């Protein structure tokens, strides 16, 4: 475990050193995030100029959901999403996976964490600042229980999504150009900043189950705002366990069928 942690830290140090070489890019990226945040807030403003609530959620609740969703997606993008994208684009088709398989570490671990998108740190960071500001200026009342379920759901959701996206990335073993699968989930993730409850039943179920993106902000925020009972953690826990085992099974099954593509 310590060895994996050490490798993880080394990868992050290398990535941080790389982005610090191009400091101007950090400012440009920061400007983009600012435009994005302001744009999406304006969108919420326009939505709530036409209605008092959205799926039973008030404006201040949706703003909180928006902030939490930004932190959650930001962390996903920062920690492992670009590694999975890299694997889907180059891992199997160019034989890069061979170099991973020869290393004395778990191949799925390296596939998940080899290329963190350090440049994306601005997104969760600014979202966290925004959420902090929202919590200070808006008057919410949270119980100790809701805060606990909120943090527990954040951890469970992040683990679930990590292994769910990893399972999808295994498609690279069978399809030459499969990166659009993750890109589709990323695009659908833009809608996770609205309460998932507003979508039709079938779409809602899909977003909350095999697509996973409906879980990102909605579930933790619903727990925090006490819109879901504490017992709601049980299906989330079971779903997370099932996803972890399925993902590991798919990964091992795909790896068994893999034959080197490089010369």
């Amino acid at each position: 475990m310590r060895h994996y942690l050490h490798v993880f830290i080394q990868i992050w140090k290398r990535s941080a050193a790389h982005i610090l070489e191009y400091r101007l890019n950090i400012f440009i990226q920061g400007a983009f995030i600012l435009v994005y945040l302001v744009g999406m807030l304006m969108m919420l403003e326009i939505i709530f100029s036409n209605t008092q609530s959205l799926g039973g959620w008030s404006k201040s609740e949706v703003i909180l959901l928006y902030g939490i969703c930004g932190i959650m997606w930001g962390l996903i993008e920062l920690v492992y999403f670009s590694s999975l994208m890299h694997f889907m684009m180059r891992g199997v088709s160019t034989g890069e996976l061979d170099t991973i398989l020869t290393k004395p570490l778990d191949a799925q671990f390296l596939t998940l964490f080899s290329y963190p998108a350090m440049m994306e740190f601005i997104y969760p960071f600014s979202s966290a600042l925004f959420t902090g500001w929202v919590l200070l200026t808006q008057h919410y009342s949270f119980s100790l229980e809701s805060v606990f379920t909120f943090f527990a759901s954040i951890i469970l959701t992040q683990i679930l999504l990590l292994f769910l996206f990893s399972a999808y990335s295994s498609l690279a073993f069978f399809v030459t150009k499969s990166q659009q699968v993750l890109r589709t989930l990323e695009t659908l993730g833009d809608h996770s900043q609205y309460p998932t409850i507003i979508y039709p039943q079938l779409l809602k179920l899909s977003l909350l189950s095999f697509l996973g993106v409906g879980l990102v902000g909605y579930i933790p925020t619903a727990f925090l705002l006490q819109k879901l009972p504490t017992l709601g953690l049980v299906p989330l826990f079971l779903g997370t366990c099932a996803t972890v085992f399925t993902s590991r099974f798919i990964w091992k099954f795909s790896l068994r069928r893999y034959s080197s593509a490089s010369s």
Partner: protein
Amino acid sequence: MKKYWLTLKISLQDLLEYRFDFLLRTVRYTTSILMLAFLWLAVAHESTSSNIDPKNIISYYLFSAMIYGLSNFHTDHIEEDVRLGYISKYLVKPVSPFWMYFFNMFAQTLAEVLVKIVLFIPAALLLGYVTFLSPVQFLLCVIMGTLVFFAMFCLYFGLSGLAFWFQYVDSIRMCVMFTFRFLSGIFISVSFFPSWYQFISRFLPFEYMAYIPIQMMQGNLDIRQSLQAICMLVGWTFLFYFFQYFIWQKATHSYESTGI
């Protein structure tokens, strides 16, 4: 012209080679836009004002999904070609990089839009979400759509040209793209924006990229208004064309290929 025609054909063949990729890319943006329709239907359901018509919302976002690809495409491969020096292969040959990339992108966009038209229009007609257009209105819609793509390609091509000076320019391009997505009416109909913005947006390029074409497709604009909109877009297209021309002239003038 033959070489560019060949580029178009090869790009189409490439799309057909990777059908799963093409299908998912088409589904990806379509689903994303249609989810916005559900968002606004939820707003309409809970709204007390009666100015949100669910039928109009569905029709609007159907057209929005259809033309999304005309103004929203990624030119990151151009930036990569500049960064890695692959652009040299165009600079030393009697071809224009602008038209080579244009026809490459055009093939992808055309295929995407055509697939959506084939799938959506009959379904929307059957469900009564769209009305028939006159041949002249249809022709004007086609001209408008082509102009939208050309104008946006010029803009993105110009922005990608900044890669001659900066290591990563995708954030700049994404900034501009997001601004266009938001203000053009792809995400939200311009009619929901404050009235002051609706007034000034007539003089800005944004609404001509999505909102006005959708209005034309919905049959809400007569021929005179459509022609006016086309004239405005032609003006902006010239501006974007000269922007990319200026950037690429400046860049290629001082460009030294060092090989990789």
